[in-house]
């Protein structure tokens, strides 16, 4: 995929919520955004700025009230529920603030979950999942349950899980919010390496230091993109592997 091609294109996207009978909240008021493959984007903004709403839309968890959203060239703005689920499963990798691993499953099984909903034969992907576990440094903890792991380890399992279906982009929602600064650094380093390996990263945070790792930062305010900072140009494809 060429570096300059936009994998995300949002055109005049609005999101309105009906609260009660009369009150209408306009969480997004016409946002335009393009994200090219391989970029590292941070979204910042105070609460109520529409940051979370934008993230939900980008993650295909919600549909815009108006406007269009092209994900990998496909218009997903008015897709039915099942098709949206399909799009999430195939194109997006999620990393959540509170890890959100499934408690009754082991590390390796948690990594496999997205494959399950693609109807893939897990046995064929076993080696793939093993490699991912090793990539995040948990090759020796495959059969541990989430409650036997530290927060940093859990988040690294979540990173591996977000990679398993080889998504177009990885959406990270405050990935270090529940971690101490040291383990937070480790997880962010891991994400950096993924980006260096060519993954598109979109990261939501309110921590400037976290955002500073991105190449491009957009600040949300009152449902609009307030300003945009380009830290450095998107890097040329360096041949360094994620490892």
């Amino acid at each position, binding site marked *: 995929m060429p570096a300059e091609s936009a994998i995300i294109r949002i055109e005049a996207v609005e999101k309105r919520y009906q609260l009660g009978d009369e009150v209408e909240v306009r969480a997004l008021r016409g946002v335009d955004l393009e994200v090219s493959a391989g970029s590292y984007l941070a979204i910042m903004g105070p609460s109520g700025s529409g940051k979370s709403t934008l993230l*939900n839309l980008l*993650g295909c*968890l*919600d549909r815009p009230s108006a406007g269009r959203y092209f994900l990998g060239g496909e218009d997903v703005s008015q897709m039915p*529920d*099942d098709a949206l*689920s*399909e799009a*999430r*499963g*195939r194109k997006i990798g*999620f990393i*959540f603030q509170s890890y*959100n691993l*499934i*408690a*009754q*499953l082991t590390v390796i099984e948690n990594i496999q*979950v*997205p494959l*399950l*909903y*693609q*109807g893939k*034969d*897990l046995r064929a992907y076993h080696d793939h999942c093993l490699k991912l576990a090793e990539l995040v440094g948990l090759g020796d903890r495959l059969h541990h349950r989430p409650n036997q792991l530290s927060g940093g380890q859990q988040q690294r399992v979540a990173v591996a*899980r977000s990679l398993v*279906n080889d998504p177009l982009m990885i959406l990270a929602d405050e990935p270090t919010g529940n971690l101490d600064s040291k383990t937070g650094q480790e997880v962010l380093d891991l994400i950096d390496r993924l980006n260096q390996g060519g993954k598109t990263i979109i990261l939501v945070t309110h921590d400037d230091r976290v955002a500073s790792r991105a190449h491009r930062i957009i600040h949300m305010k009152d449902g609009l993109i307030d300003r945009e900072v380009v830290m450095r140009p998107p890097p040329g494809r360096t041949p360094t592997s994620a490892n």
Partner: protein
Amino acid sequence: MLTFQFLSTVRLGIKSLMLHKLRSALTMLGIIFGVCSVIAMLAIGEGASYEAQEAIKKLGSNNILLRSLKPPEQARQQGSGASRGMQLKYGLTYEDGARLHSTIPGVLRVLPMRIIRENVRFGRNEIPCQVIGTLPFYTEVTGAGVVSGRFLAHMDEQHQENVCVITTGLARRLFPNQNPLQHAVKIDAFYYRVVGIVQERSQPEQRSQAGKMEGQPLDNNVYISLNTSRTRFGDVLIRRSAGSFEAEEVQLHQITVQMRDLAAVETADPQIKTLLSRFHDQNDYEIIVPLQLLRQAEQTKRIFNIVLGSIAAISLLVGGIGIMNIMLATVTERTREIGVRRALGAKRRDITMQFLVETVVLSVGGGIIGVCVGVVTPVVVSQLTTMRTIVTLWSVLVAFGISGAVGIVFGLYPATAAAKLDPIEALRHE
């Protein structure tokens, strides 16, 4: 591929249930009790009706039984009994037998019986018995089988021979250590040579003299030919008891009418009633139609099964409600997990499937355990009580099927409720 996915869903369901072992076990308990009680109750019902039906079948479904009855006290004083003083005359007569044979269509055989209670003696042994005067084709009508020797023959009947046939039970008691054949037993004042031993299928007369026989051993029967009985004992029977005596004249105590087929039994029943009522001015006989008894027993069994089954079904229902309750709680508790799964690409139907499978695993698991316990329970009941129990395959299948259906029916609502959750809301759920 699909089956693999289904299997992993089942595996996941079991895993999720194992996360809360006690809760799952308690939830299952409702289904276990439900299934177990369905099977056990139906087994007890089945056993009870089986015994009743067997007893009736032994009477022979092609047969119609007529029995002499002592008329009730009041009727006796007004009727013929009073005019004859102490001697009471009632019951079926030889003519009745002849008339039945010649007028009722479809009659195969008419078997008359005189049943007299006498002590039978051999050596030092003396046993109270029923001395039954009957005809040679007794065995064909009642299905009694000759164990050794022979049954009564026409020659015995013609010559009023003093020969007798005894039942296996009596043979055991009267001749503990020897072969009874060719020995003679003494009944009243006469000796009778034993020519055969028979095995009874049923009791020809269990209450010959209007309910005075309770507590008597049931298979102490001696068979002599009808003519012999008539000449040796006469038609007037005298019984003495503590300072009073009773004389009654009864020609026949029982007539068994064997019909050609089942259809003939149906039509003959009212005809016999009409015929007998013309010659009997008092109600001194009863008509027993085993076929009708059998039908009634089957009807009773059906009602019995419905009642027992519904009681047990209610407990299954309660178990199902328990499952639904727990699953609703589980869905709330696992809202976050549902949100995560949805975010990772699960469609609504994947979530529905996951929780439905979990419920069905619970209920079918409970069903399997319930079937095991339910099959064992009747056996234990039979051991502890004298009740007979029969576990039928269909009751097991029905109980198991219902438990599965309960899982689906009561799992559907929690599962769809889980699938309907908005992924964003679910992810935000604490």
